[in-house]
């Protein structure tokens, strides 16, 4: 495993191009584009204000930089550095900006979610979509980029509009049976749209591409409901994480629950392996040292850690959430399927130090990873069943069916891994600290040996 040197970044804005060749980072108001293998700076662009959001176009030719405070969006071209594009939203303000799947339109959401303006970079034409819903996830593009689903609210009722991304033609518009729509997501095969209600009501609706209601699922009433929803990449399963600390899996044939995964505080009676992060004491400081000798080497002060396999029963430390606060820190908030749909990684908010890995073939718990600090981010390798996670310290944790490992990031200074991103070919991971970033190149041969 090789680590690159540290580069600056701001706002956690660091993205790899869809074709995997370039790495774009934002440093304050500058946009830096590097070559991924050499990390040499290829292009440098200057924006008008601090960049709030940065996004690659789907064909890896353009980069969008949005500055929400100023209400500006600037688009840069990789091929033609001289080319420029500036979209000014004016008084109406800007809350979010994104590319369309074809990479030639930009969708800007105005302040107060008054409307979505669709800017065409081919014709300078403008289209408006009125009254989009301001919710957790109100807009989603299908995987092949041909359709866009948008949640709207009209006359105190939720509805969904399906647009054809080709020419922004409204294909379908239908009301949904939700009280307060919280989010929607296309299935990876683009034929089913999953829609879920806010946490006050447990309701998941499944609509077909042509707007027909296929099925409704509700596990229970009254208690807080759905917290997170995720499709499996094969479109076979829909995982629903809820506030009752359970994950329910629906199958795509009958849309009925096939299994329920629970996250108990005490794990016993299971064939899963429980890995616990154990910290080793730091090396002892020598007796004789002078000011010269003392080096501000982080490795001296940082603690080594490794995973140890615990024997059952194991108690996972749970934090009781404040009952008086809204959106309590309890329940399954993050669900992630591996690329082959074989594994599902979940995080239960009242056990923030643990990540649960479930085997979808056996429909049982595969492994539990417990750490010393709360897990901040975890993502699956896009190509193989390998999970990378970080807990806010200077370590990178990796899990695969063969085992798991904790790697210290050998970076000088204080580098705390806040989030991470995988490269699209799964060979490297981008680690993002507060103001820094670092690339970790996986030794694929070694990893494969480990896995086999």
């Amino acid at each position, binding site marked *: 495993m090789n680590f690159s040197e540290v580069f600056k970044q701001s706002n956690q804005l660091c993205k790899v191009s869809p074709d995997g060749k370039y790495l774009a980072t934002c440093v304050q108001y500058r946009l830096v584009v590097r070559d991924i293998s050499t990390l040499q700076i290829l292009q440098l662009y200057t924006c008008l204000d601090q960049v709030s959001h940065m996004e690659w176009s789907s064909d890896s030719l353009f980069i969008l930089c949005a500055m929400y405070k100023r209400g500006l969006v600037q688009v840069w071209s990789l091929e033609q550095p001289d080319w420029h*594009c500036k*979209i*000014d939203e004016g*008084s109406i303000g800007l809350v979010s900006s994104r590319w369309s799947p074809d990479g030639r339109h930009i969708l800007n959401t105005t*302040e107060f979610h008054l409307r979505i303006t669709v800017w065409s970079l081919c014709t300078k034409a*403008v289209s408006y979509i009125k009254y989009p819903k301001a919710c957790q996830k109100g807009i989603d593009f299908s995987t092949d980029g041909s359709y866009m689903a948008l949640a709207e609210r009209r006359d105190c009722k939720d509805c969904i509009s399906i647009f054809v991304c080709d020419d922004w033609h409204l294909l379908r518009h239908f009301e949904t049976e939700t009280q307060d729509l919280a989010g929607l997501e296309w299935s990876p095969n683009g034929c089913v749209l999953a829609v879920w209600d806010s*946490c006050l009501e447990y309701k998941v609706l499944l609509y077909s591409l*042509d707007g027909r209601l296929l099925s409704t699922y509700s596990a229970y009433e009254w208690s807080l409901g759905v917290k997170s929803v995720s499709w499996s990449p094969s479109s076979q399963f829909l995982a629903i994480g809820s506030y009752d600390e359970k994950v329910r899996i629906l199958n795509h044939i009958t849309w009925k629950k096939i299994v329920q995964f629970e996250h108990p505080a005490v794990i016993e009676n299971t064939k899963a392996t429980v890995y616990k992060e154990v910290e080793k004491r730091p090396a002892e400081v020598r007796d004789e040292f002078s000011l010269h000798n003392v080096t501000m080497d982080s490795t001296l002060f940082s603690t080594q850690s490794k995973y140890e396999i615990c024997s059952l029963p194991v108690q996972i430390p749970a934090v009781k959430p404040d*009952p008086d606060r809204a959106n309590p820190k309890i329940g399954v908030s993050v669900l992630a399927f591996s690329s082959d749909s074989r594994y599902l990684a979940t995080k239960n908010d009242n056990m923030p130090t643990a990540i649960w890995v479930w085997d979808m073939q056996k429909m049982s718990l595969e492994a539990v990873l417990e750490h010393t600090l709360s897990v901040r981010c975890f993502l699956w390798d896009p190509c193989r069943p390998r999970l990378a996670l970080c807990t806010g310290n200077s370590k990178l944790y990796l899990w695969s069916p063969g085992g798991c490992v904790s790697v210290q990031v050998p970076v000088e200074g204080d580098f705390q891994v806040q989030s991470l991103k995988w490269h699209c070919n799964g060979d490297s991971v981008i680690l993002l600290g507060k103001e820094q970033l670092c690339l970790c190149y996986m030794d694929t041969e070694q990893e494969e040996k480990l896995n086999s």
Partner: protein
Amino acid sequence: MPDSSQVKDARRCSVECGTPPLRHFSQSSLALPRNSQSLRTFCTEHNMQECLSYIKQEVSLLSLSPFWTELDDDSQLNVVAVLNCMYDLIQLHHRSLRTLENMEMEQLKLSSYVDNLKTNNTHLKEEVELSKRQNTGLLERERQLHLKLKSLQSSLKNEKDEVQKLQNITSSRACQYNHEMKRRERELNKLRERLNQLLADKKERKQTIDLLNNLGRADGKRSLWKTEKTEAKHEEEMYRTLLSDYELRQRELALENKELRKVMQQIKKEMVSILKSRKLALKEEKQELNGMQTASDDEENEVFDSSKESLELFCIHAREKLTNSIRLQWRRLKSHVEKLDSQEKEEMDRLKLEIQQCKDFIQTQQHLLQRQLSSPIDQDSASLQNDGLMLQEKMRLSEEWKSLEEQRRIFERERRNYTEAAIRLSHERKIFEEDRALWLKQQFLSMSPFGNSNQPHLLKSASALLITETEVGSLNASEMPHECQSVLVSQKSRSVSLTSSSTDDLESALCLIPENGSSEHRKSELFGDFNSLHENVPLRRKQWKESKDLSSHSLSEENSTA
């Protein structure tokens, strides 16, 4: 006698001057009976002295004053003293009567008291019973009430928990609503501010886009006008996507179904085969059942073999049948396996027992052997040698026996053939004799002036058939004699009883033929085929005899060694 009269008078006196108590007493049952007869029985004129002495004794016992003087004779009695004595006695009697009466009173009182107590006792017992019953009833009630109390407590607890839960839910929901409300209020405030700002703001910045140059479309094509055609095209594309997805899914499901059906049928076949093999083993025991089962199996097999390949089994009926049949087979298999298990166990036990027995036997044998071995050494080697020799002999003998057996079998076969041949020969002979007789007759007749026309006719009679056969036979002369024999036998449909002819008979039968063969060439031809047989026969006979000798020899040997 005067005494007695005196006594009588005294008594009468006492009676006359009787005081009321006396009368009273006299009325009581304890009073002496006014039967003067008893007086007479006690004392008579003859036993006066004895009576007197007796009375004296009694009086002295009762410690009354004596009524006689010692000096006096028995005949002299002091009347006063006697009267006193009598008076004392009477007093005594009265006293005793009184005490008796008292006692009777006491007794009555006591008995009535006892009765009273008894009735009291029964009353009390009844009361105790009643109270016991009441007690158990109360205990039962108490228990039931306890149970009820427990259930009510648990339901109360449940209700409390539920109430708590609902309270929690309500509070969390209230929290959520409040949060939401606050958020919306904040947003509303922001909107208001913005609106105010916009109203105040004179300059309205409009939306603008500034592009250096228009980009081409990503796919390079020209954009189309929005017409109904495009809309229709979009619809079409959407439905096509959906349909292709459904088709794909259906294909996958059909494949899966096919695989699963294959697996099911395989399982069914295997189960049926296992059951059938099992049934063959248990045939004798459960014939009827087997018949039924096999019949049903065959039925099912027929049904499924016919429909398996031809139809694609899309009908639910067939599918249900298949699953039901598999379930049935599975149950049968299970029962068979259970039976096998039990049988195995029994067999295991039996075999274990046998093994144990054999082990014991071996042990005893070894023991004996050791004992034998422990005897003097020179006997040892000799016996060992003998043993070895014996084993060798045994082996050789067994081999010889085997070979002899084989030979015997061959000889049996030959003998059968011989007997058949002999029988045939006898037939031939008979026919030949007849023929000869005829021929002689003919000769004789031919010698006579009459009967020439009959010759050819007669000739044809019996041996004509034979001639044709000999021709046939001569054709097949090279072949085994068996075949022509069989031909001859088949022609003659006479059933012959194959008597176990001894070798002597055979010999005689065979010997006959060469004698006759020289006269008739026809017959020689006919019997020429038998000649080969004849040649073989003596050889074989010899062999047989030899073998017989050998066998006898071996037998004798065996007898000697056994």
